């Protein structure tokens, strides 16, 4: 299967492999992801990847160790009950999901209970009949397929007392925002939240895992950016030196070189042999 097809299948959400994940594997996966992310993050200078990878590696490592010690109970599977039972920020975050249904089910003052499909059917029928009777099309009017604004919703806003009667309470908005955040998370968002917890953990701090603090420290981030810029400068210098070295080692192209056909070193007159002076007798002979 071509790579593109494999990728397409993954993107399209086709289940290539139906895989369940046991708790032991879950910690193993978190640790492996942490190892990859931190390793690649360090090598590439990507601070976020390095730090979030550190968070995952630590959590995965602790989880695997705890699992091997039997601290999580005998069942090998992460059950929903276990998640709810866990203490801490992560377990509490899950409750944002249920607050959405609370909000939907809660009685909202000022709106009479009505069946939406009945409203749409009644108003659409009314609109179509009205258009047909008039024989004209109002450009401002909704098209026939659009449900007209429901007219039989009772608006009980009468005066200042009821002015906010239909509006959701502040609490509802707050809950909506939290539920939206919970559903739009990526893996790395989750790791970032885990880092927030670990940052304040005394036990982890005592282990010298202060690298997590960099996730939330703007000063450290700026320092990292400056270091990156410096690293870029060094890389550029190294590249220049490599190029110079390559130029020096390169074999010159001699294809265009023309050689003078005249041998400039050839003697024009025959050399005269001169015997070497040997001995004292000949030393001063003139």
């Amino acid at each position, binding site marked *: 299967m071509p*790579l*593109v097809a494999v990728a397409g299948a993954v993107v399209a959400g086709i289940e290539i*492999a139906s*895989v369940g*994940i046991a708790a032991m594997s879950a910690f193993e996966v978190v640790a492996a992801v942490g190892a990859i992310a931190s390793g690649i993050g360090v090598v590439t200078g990507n601070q976020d990847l390095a730090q979030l990878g550190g968070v*995952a590696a630590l959590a995965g490592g602790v989880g695997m160790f705890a699992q091997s010690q039997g601290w999580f109970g005998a069942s090998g599977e992460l059950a929903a009950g276990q998640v709810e039972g866990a203490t801490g920020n992560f377990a509490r975050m899950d409750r944002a999901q249920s607050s959405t249904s609370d909000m939907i089910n809660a009685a909202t003052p000022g709106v009479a209970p009505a069946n939406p499909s009945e409203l749409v059917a009644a108003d659409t029928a009314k609109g179509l009949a009205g258009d047909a009777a008039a024989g004209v099309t109002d450009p401002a009017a909704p098209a026939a397929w659009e449900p007209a604004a429901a007219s039989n919703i009772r608006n009980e806003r009468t005066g200042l007392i009821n002015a906010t009667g239909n509006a959701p309470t502040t609490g509802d908005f707050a809950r909506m925002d939290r539920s939206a955040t919970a559903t739009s998370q990526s*893996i790395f968002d989750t790791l970032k939240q885990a880092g927030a917890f670990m940052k304040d953990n005394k036990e982890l701090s005592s282990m010298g895992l202060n690298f997590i603090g960099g996730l939330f420290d703007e000063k450290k981030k700026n320092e990292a950016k400056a270091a990156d810029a410096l690293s870029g400068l060094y890389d550029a210098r190294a590249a220049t030196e490599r190029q110079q070295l390559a130029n020096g080692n390169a074999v010159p192209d001699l294809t265009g070189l023309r050689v003078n056909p005249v041998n400039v070193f050839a003697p024009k007159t025959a050399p005269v042999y001169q015997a070497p002076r040997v001995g004292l007798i000949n030393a001063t002979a003139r």
Partner: protein
Amino acid sequence: MNNPDLQAAQAAIDKAVKPADRQAYDRIVVAGMKVMFSKQTHNQIFQGLEGAQDPVALTAEGAAGLMLMLREQSRNTMPMGPMIMAGQSLLLEALDFIEQGGLAQIKVDKAVIAQATQHYIETILPKIGMTPEKMQATIGQTQGVMNDPKKMAAFKQSMGG
């Protein structure tokens, strides 16, 4: 690999593999390389990258998909940890091959490697059941241990610290 950034990344992955996982990791990488570069498949497997809008993301997704296929072939017996690391290694191999062969307009540098890694992780984890919610629950489960000084001392000791 000729690209120094890819070489460094590969070295980092090799270093991160635990000794206990080494054999499984090597076997998975070899199996993946066979699929990617065998005479029967290497021409076909990378087709379609030319002209792709985001060849880096496509390559990362391909590496994730390849791992899932191999795991299926193993009847889901392939261990998860080594599998994820082997997939990253194959991703680096694929990026190298694409750059060397000029299959797509990619200049593989540190930023590209980081981007591909992040995309690979984001792609493969939900596919093996590790959704953000599941990861949240998994990490959340360790908080009790992290808050317990005695347990953390034992963990620290196990790490040789």
